[in-house]
């Protein structure tokens, strides 16, 4: 594969996608709430860990209820955090005050969220504040922040006379946009009461989010996703970065749904989620290269690959494998294209079917940050059983790479010998 016109064109498209400010605001905004999700995930995992003596222990000393509290206010309200940060990031990309935009987005989101009556008091149900509200959070975050930028750019703000401290005038800059935007979403909210859905959440969830999650959470989407990420990498493009907006906006809510189900003691609904991808698709980084890194570090006979394997191995346990991608190299290297695509396909397919047939439990769905070590991530998502499956996948993917690597190793060894 040479640096063809096709590749350059693809590079440009990839660059456009990954630097598109709306997609980037969605990814960056969702990335900002990862801390919230992690606290929620550990709260759920610690309170629901299915080990009987442990459960008896935490119930007896009365801390089970306590352990459940953080999840309630994090995972189950994640849309509230997300809407703020998506708007914050989008306004920031236009070099406008992010916190005003975030605040306005949060108000707009709440205006659209239905309340119910509990006896005589209005209550705000959690239903649309968590995973089910994430698409509305994305839409409202983007639309309200864009409107905010538009209004500020038009100069429709209250200008304070000179001499007023900048912090004071900053507060007032957001006021006019806030009034206009919140009125706008109030009207939208009102209009939805005339539809059979009753509110925007119900509409977006049943017409956009649920169908997209159904599609995106299926087996063939998993395969297509794996193919796209790795196909792009082979052409030298950071595949994961390009598909990140889809990855986060579709697969992250699927994981949140699993955590919610776990907290409620229900069956886990989704096989595919970001936790699953982390444990199996990104096993040592793109290309599921951990097995390859181990082979290189311990079994390579050429100096060149042994050294590289030792450079690559520590990072590989944390999912960072650029030394292999560029140093081996895998990128633009036809010899390794086949295992680079086949290995991750196999390492997602086998666990998928183990889960769909009920042989092993589905992943808990915790969204762990980039750099979370292998083994640990498997234990978090599914205990010892998942850890064993992950280790088997490291061996299987290693075996897929092995014959291809042997050829390269042999060539390098001969070169080294003749150079001596």
């Amino acid at each position, binding site marked *: 594969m040479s640096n063809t016109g096709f590749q350059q064109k693809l590079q*440009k498209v990839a660059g456009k996608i990954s630097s598109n400010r709306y997609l980037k605001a969605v990814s960056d905004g969702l990335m900002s709430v990862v801390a919230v999700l992690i606290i929620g995930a550990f709260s759920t995992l610690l309170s629901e860990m299915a080990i009987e003596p442990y459960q008896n222990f935490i119930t007896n000393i009365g801390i089970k209820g306590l352990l459940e509290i953080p999840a309630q206010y994090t995972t189950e309200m994640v849309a509230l955090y997300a809407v703020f940060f998506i708007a914050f990031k989008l306004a920031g990309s236009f070099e406008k005050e992010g916190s005003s935009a975030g605040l306005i987005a949060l108000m707009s989101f709440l205006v659209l969220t239905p309340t119910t009556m509990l006896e005589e008091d209005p209550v705000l149900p959690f239903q649309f504040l968590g995973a089910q509200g994430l698409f509305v959070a994305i839409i409202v975050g983007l639309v309200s922040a864009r409107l905010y930028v538009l209004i500020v750019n038009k100069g429709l703000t209250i200008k304070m006379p000179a001499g007023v401290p900048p912090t004071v005038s900053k507060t007032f800059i957001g006021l006019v946009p806030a009034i206009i935007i919140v009125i706008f979403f109030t009207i939208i909210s009102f209009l939805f009461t005339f539809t059979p859905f009753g509110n925007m959440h119900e509409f977006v969830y049943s017409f956009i989010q649920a169908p997209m999650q159904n599609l995106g959470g299926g087996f063939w989407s998993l395969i297509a996703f794996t193919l796209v990420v790795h196909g792009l990498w082979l052409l*030298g493009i950071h595949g994961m*970065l390009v598909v990140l907006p889809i990855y986060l906006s579709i697969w992250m809510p699927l994981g949140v749904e699993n955590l919610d189900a776990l907290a409620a003691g229900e069956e886990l609904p989704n096989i595919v989620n970001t936790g699953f991808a982390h444990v199996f698709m990104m096993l040592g980084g793109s290309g599921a290269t951990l097995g390859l890194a181990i082979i290189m570090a311990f079994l390579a006979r050429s100096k060149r690959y042994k050294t590289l394997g030792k450079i690559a191995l520590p990072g590989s346990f944390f999912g960072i494998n650029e030394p292999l991608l560029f140093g081996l190299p895998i990128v633009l290297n036809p010899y390794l294209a086949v295992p680079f695509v086949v290995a991750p396909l196999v390492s997602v397919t086998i666990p998928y079917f183990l889960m769909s047939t009920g042989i092993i439990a589905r992943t808990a769905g915790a969204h762990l940050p980039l750099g979370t070590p292998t083994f640990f991530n498997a234990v978090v998502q599914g205990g010892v059983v998942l850890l064993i499956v992950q280790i088997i996948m490291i061996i299987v993917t290693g075996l897929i790479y092995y014959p291809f690597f042997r050829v390269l190793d042999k060539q390098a060894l001969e070169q080294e010998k003749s150079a001596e």
Partner: protein
Amino acid sequence: MKNILLVCAAGMSTSMLVDKMKKAAEAKDEEIKIEASSGGDIKSHIEEADVLLLGPQVSYLQEDYTKQYGGDNGIPVEVIDSLDYGTMNGEKVLNWALDLISNA
């Protein structure tokens, strides 16, 4: 003082290279500051930078960044050689970066 800024996707693998470059820089006489950044927070680092280096996985950003930060009045914006990047050859990348600065 010379200031080198590196950018990759999440700033993770680049920080590995930065460590190696810092070690190589200790052997030099001059004071050199080397930093890794992800694409997102480039704005907070770019002011001080004398050269902007991109990881090969984000080479497609070069055009964009050259427009913003490079050009006649800007700083050099270059993509790191992928083999040097992969083998984490800090010394070679450092020398190359210093050459870019002195030729700018």
